[in-house]
């Protein structure tokens, strides 16, 4: 394996929970939720890594730690060998340009009162990137929307179109790494496939590194070469996509995820339902 582009080393993140005033007076410690516990993951340049697990397993928290939306309690994140958590000022801004994120809910991830044009122009202005005009047009073309969408508001777009805008926004600063937090789970099945294919195409064209968070094994195997299974904040196992596709899975938890993503199974044939008494 080549040198890691992004290295996560023994990362932990806890969230404080509410403590009753009585317990606080008694001096009891504040209860904590261990969202991510001692997770290590190494991602090579150009790789697509999936992080899978059920809801609440800490996979989104892990992704958010990577762009410093959460500050981890312990552990290290290194990007190109530099300690991400120590970055400040211009270095941190440079890091922001290199690592971008696409969120799960395209209805919540776009500023509701900005036009597509402003949504895409603002990051360029902040980071002092020239030729905003051409970049915005190119970004819209790249996500398959075209310049006709430039002066629309998010509420005038469908879920799939919004997610394309979110992808365009994430890519407009030309990042190295794209974090995808369940990018298709809020979309319906046909749009899901379109967006996944778009992401795949963008990755090939730009040589991007993907980190994709999902609960859906089918989606992850479609896009990623390698995946990490998480449960209750901890790593359960690492798998390669071919292994998963061939159902070479031993871990019980991964198996249950695999069954879950293969769809609902009817408990009984409709004809064999017991009559109501």
């Amino acid at each position, binding site marked *: 394996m080549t040198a890691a582009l992004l290295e996560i080393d023994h990362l932990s993140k806890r969230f404080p929970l509410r403590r009753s005033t009585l317990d606080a007076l008694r001096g009891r410690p504040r209860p904590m939720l261990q969202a991510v516990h001692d997770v290590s993951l190494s991602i090579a340049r150009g790789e697509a890594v999936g992080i899978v697990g059920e809801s609440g397993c800490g996979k989104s928290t892990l992704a958010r730690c990577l762009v410093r939306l959460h500050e981890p309690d312990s552990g290290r994140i290194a990007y190109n060998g530099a300690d991400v958590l120590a970055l400040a000022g211009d270095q941190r801004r440079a890091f*922001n340009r290199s*690592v971008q994120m696409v969120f799960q809910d395209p209805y*919540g991830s776009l*500023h*509701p*009162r900005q036009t597509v044009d402003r949504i895409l122009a*603002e990051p360029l202005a902040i980071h002092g990137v020239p030729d905003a005009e051409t970049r915005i047009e190119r970004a819209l073309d790249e996500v398959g929307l075209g310049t006709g969408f430039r002066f629309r*508001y998010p509420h005038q777009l469908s879920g799939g179109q919004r997610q394309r805008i*979110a992808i365009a926004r994430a890519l407009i600063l030309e990042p190295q790494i794209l974090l995808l937090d369940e990018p298709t789970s809020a979309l319906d099945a046909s749009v899901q496939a379109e967006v996944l294919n778009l992401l795949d195409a963008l990755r090939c064209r730009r040589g991007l590194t993907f980190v994709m968070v999902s609960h859906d094994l089918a989606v992850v195997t479609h896009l990623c070469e390698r995946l990490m299974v998480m449960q209750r904040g901890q790593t359960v196992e690492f798998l390669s996509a071919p292994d998963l596709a061939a159902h070479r899975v031993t871990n019980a938890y991964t198996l249950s995820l695999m069954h879950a993503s293969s769809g609902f199974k009817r408990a009984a044939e409709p004809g064999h339902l017991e009559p109501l008494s």
Partner: protein
Amino acid sequence: MKRRLSIPFLIGLTILTVLVLCALFPDLVAPYDPLAFDYTAMMVAPNAAHPFGTDQFGRDLLSRTIHAAGIDLQIALFATIGPLLIGATIGLLVGWFGGLADTLVGRLIDLVQTFPFLVLVIAIVAVLGPGLNNMYVAVALVGWVFYARLMRGEVLVQKGADYIAAARALGYSQRRLMLRHIMPNAIRPVLIYLVTDMALAILLGSSLGYLGLGAQPPTPEWGVLVADGKNFFTTAPWMSLFPGLAIVLTGLGFSLTGDGLADLMDVRR
């Protein structure tokens, strides 16, 4: 997208337009001098010459009601703009930064809200001395809590939204996040409340005028006019009735306009 203006919104706008015209050009609209005594026509019931009747000094009530519009609209504006600016700013700051300041301000808001609004305003005006300027100060000191509470709640909702997380990941500064991203999305309910509050401010101004703590006679102000007429209510009910109707109508105008604006400002429709 074509938006249809609703009938209630148009009615509200019409009322407010008429009021603003009255406030700006009272001398053109009013048939008489509002302060001129006419001892030949004292306490005349509404008729063709005096549509709203006259008071005990023969002053034309229509003219007085029209001349009062300026003062009352001024009250609607000045008694809300102070609380809005103070409250929205505090709400934005504590909602965004949270922490101890948030807790303290929250408790302060609770504390102020436990007092009846009018009683607190009257108490402050009584200390500062009667008059409109002191009333504005008192209202600003008390009224900001409603705006702050509203703004803070809305900021907390917006703060958790993914578009803010996306903006953070893009490296936007705190100031930009707060002013360009949180504020425009959190201010809408506050502005809608503002218009409703303008109606309440007119009622408040009238109440204080009625108690002799707001506008001072002989300045015509609707509350003062209602108070003047109360002694003659059994013999000359029009003296209180018409200024009272003006208050009601203005309140209605603000409410209808506020609701209409709320619908219009919603870009998501």
